[in-house]
């Protein structure tokens, strides 16, 4: 029964989104429509789509699970996700919309020698997007296999299916289809979360004091069988000394400075007609994202109090907390609904990542780096983007299958945010606001931030560690050695390194009169919207 129900919901989501893709494909006949949905998306539509692009399975399933297992410390993840949008709103969104065309690199390369800056910016974009995508796909594969247990849909089939769907959305429907997939997914996700929250509160007779009293005494069994009763509102269940506090700060830095450097979020602001609409779309996104993350209180603590750690651990582990809560509280049909939402969530996020990666390859690498900014034949850039989407998708499918369902991929998400915060953000900010900034500064900032993030992750506890002999296969640390860097999130160190690289490169490089002169131009564009890309009719 529940299996059929989940499948039916999965398939209806796929049918609806493919219908949208078919509709969008007839409107993707120009570059502005393929890459930027003709810049005709409205504020509320883009706001919901930004929220849809942003609220990944890591949020919906991951944070609910972290709260269910670690209480308050899990909720700490929720807070930074909203506050991060203030950086987007106040510093990045409007200048980006005013000064750029299709990609993040448009703004970074504006004043500089375009080829080296675009090349580096594109490497950074592709790194962030593909690593984030692989993390999502491994998650999707294990989730689908788990949700459809007994249906003979294996991990490999699930990963391949998700991969093919995201390629189809992007290749045929471009930005317009991707946008509507995000919108539908975000509405489903919010609806599911509200419903689940109401059911949790109904369980506690709509009494917040009763709910919070239950949170104050959550019980579960330790591995040795001892019964433990803990106040789950107390900080420190996950982030323990000596490095816990630093880890919290480092995580916060990655979120606050990384979100405004995530290429798949930034490209969304090119889909609206002007900077003012971009501003209102961030506000819409903040309303939705904030409401969602506040409600993780009900999802996570609800799972901790009503379902319990013991039951979740036996039935699929942390990531199954939200679906299991749905099952325990409202039965199989609701479980199917929540599972389908989780699936839609992953599908929408990977589609957003695919389009930002392939746009960057086509527009930055192919047209601007390889061919000096000239599209040799009409539609070439779109064709290259479609091929790139196909290749990126195929690579992500292959890597996700090789890694397998048990691989620890959380560090790939940490890496994506670290690169966005350490490489992209310093260079975005300096490009828009610092007159003296030059080409060598931009290249060094991107390079230092990227390398620092990757190296610190590689020598950190996500990759290095000594496992007991009982830990087998992909769950083992790839390098059996005590970690050299103590934090899972490198932001605390890699973000200052990124900024230092940008400063160092600027002062060591030659003064760049053209970059200074073009700054005056960029400053006018960024602040007034003069000469910005306009919306186009179909």
């Amino acid at each position, binding site marked *: 029964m529940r299996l059929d129900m989940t499948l039916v919901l999965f398939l209806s989501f796929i049918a609806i989104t493919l219908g949208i893709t078919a509709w969008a494909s007839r409107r993707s006949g120009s570059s502005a429509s393929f890459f930027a949905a003709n810049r005709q998306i409205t504020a509320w539509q883009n706001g919901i789509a930004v929220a849809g692009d942003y609220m990944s399975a890591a949020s919906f399933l991951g944070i609910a699970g972290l709260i269910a297992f670690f209480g*308050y410390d899990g*909720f*700490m993840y*929720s*807070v930074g996700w*909203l*506050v991060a*949008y*203030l*950086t987007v*709103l*106040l*510093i990045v969104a409007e200048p980006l919309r005013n000064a*750029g*065309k299709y990609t993040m690199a*448009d703004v970074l*390369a*504006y004043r500089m020698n375009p080829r080296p800056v675009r090349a580096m910016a594109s490497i950074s974009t592709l790194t962030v997007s593909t690593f984030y995508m692989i993390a999502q796909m491994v998650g999707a594969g294990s989730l689908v296999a788990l949700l459809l247990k007994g249906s003979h849909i294996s991990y490999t089939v699930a990963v391949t299916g998700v991969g093919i769907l995201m390629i189809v959305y992007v290749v045929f429907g471009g930005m317009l289809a991707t946008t509507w997939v995000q919108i539908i997914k975000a509405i489903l996700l919010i609806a599911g979360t509200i419903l689940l929250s109401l059911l949790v509160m109904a369980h506690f007779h709509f009494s917040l*004091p009763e709910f*919070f*009293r239950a949170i*104050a005494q959550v019980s579960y069994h330790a591995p040795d069988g001892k019964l433990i009763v803990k*106040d789950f*509102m*107390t*900080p*420190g269940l996950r*982030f323990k000394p000596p490095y*816990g*506090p*630093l880890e*919290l*700060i480092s*995580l*916060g830095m990655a979120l*606050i400075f990384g979100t405004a450097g995530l290429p798949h979020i930034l490209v969304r602001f090119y889909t609206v007609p002007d900077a*003012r609409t971009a*501003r*209102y779309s*961030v*506000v819409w996104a*903040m*309303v939705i994202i*904030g409401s969602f*993350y*506040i409600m993780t209180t009900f999802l996570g603590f609800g799972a901790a109090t009503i379902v319990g750690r013991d039951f979740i651990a036996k039935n699929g582990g942390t990531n199954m907390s939200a679906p299991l809560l749905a099952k325990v509280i409202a039965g199989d049909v609701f479980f199917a609904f929540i599972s389908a939402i989780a699936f839609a969530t992953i599908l929408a996020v990977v589609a957003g990542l695919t389009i930002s990666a392939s746009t960057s390859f086509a527009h930055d690498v192919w047209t*601007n780096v390889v061919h000096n*900014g000239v599209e040799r034949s009409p539609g070439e850039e779109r064709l290259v983007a479609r091929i790139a989407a196909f290749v990126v998708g195929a690579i992500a499918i292959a890597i996700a299958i090789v890694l397998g369902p048990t691989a620890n991929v959380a560090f790939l998400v940490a890496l994506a945010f670290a690169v966005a915060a350490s490489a992209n953000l310093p260079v975005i900010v300096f490009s828009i606001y610092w007159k003296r900034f030059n080409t060598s500064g931009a290249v060094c900032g991107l390079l230092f931030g990227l390398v620092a993030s990757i190296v610190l992750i590689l020598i950190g506890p996500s990759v290095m560690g000594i496992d007991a002999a009982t830990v087998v296969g992909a769950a083992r640390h790839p390098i059996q050695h005590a970690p050299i860097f103590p934090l899972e999130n490198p932001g605390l160190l890699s973000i200052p390194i990124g900024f230092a690289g940008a400063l160092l490169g600027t002062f060591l490089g030659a003064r760049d009169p053209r970059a200074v002169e073009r700054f*005056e*131009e960029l*400053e*006018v*564009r960024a*602040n*007034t919207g*003069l*000469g*910005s*890309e*306009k919306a186009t009719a179909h």
Partner: protein
Amino acid sequence: MATPRTADANTGQGKSKWDRVQEMEEFRLLLLAKKEFVVPTTVFFVVYYFALPVLVGYAPEFMSRKVLGPVNLAYLFALSQFFVAWGIAWAYVSAARKFDKYGVHILETLKREGYDEKQDGKRGL
């Protein structure tokens, strides 16, 4: 910021529109108004946000204090972050209405001087 500049040789027709805007009093006021809002607000939300992980990380006992029935300070402070973020977003949108007015004014001045918007925005990047 707005350094007065002489005729731009690149355009061949006197000053470029970028230079013209840089010279305008409204543009200077626009940049100033933005700076006066964005810089202190950014400092405030960054400090307010990082106070949370710092306090939770380094003063967990203090933050565990129950202040509202079964609800502790740590949760209330975390929850307050959401409302502070929304409040700042609202304040920014209000302040930005003023920025938009400067923008409209600048564009009107340019148009009066013969600038044609339709000929613009087609330049490739």
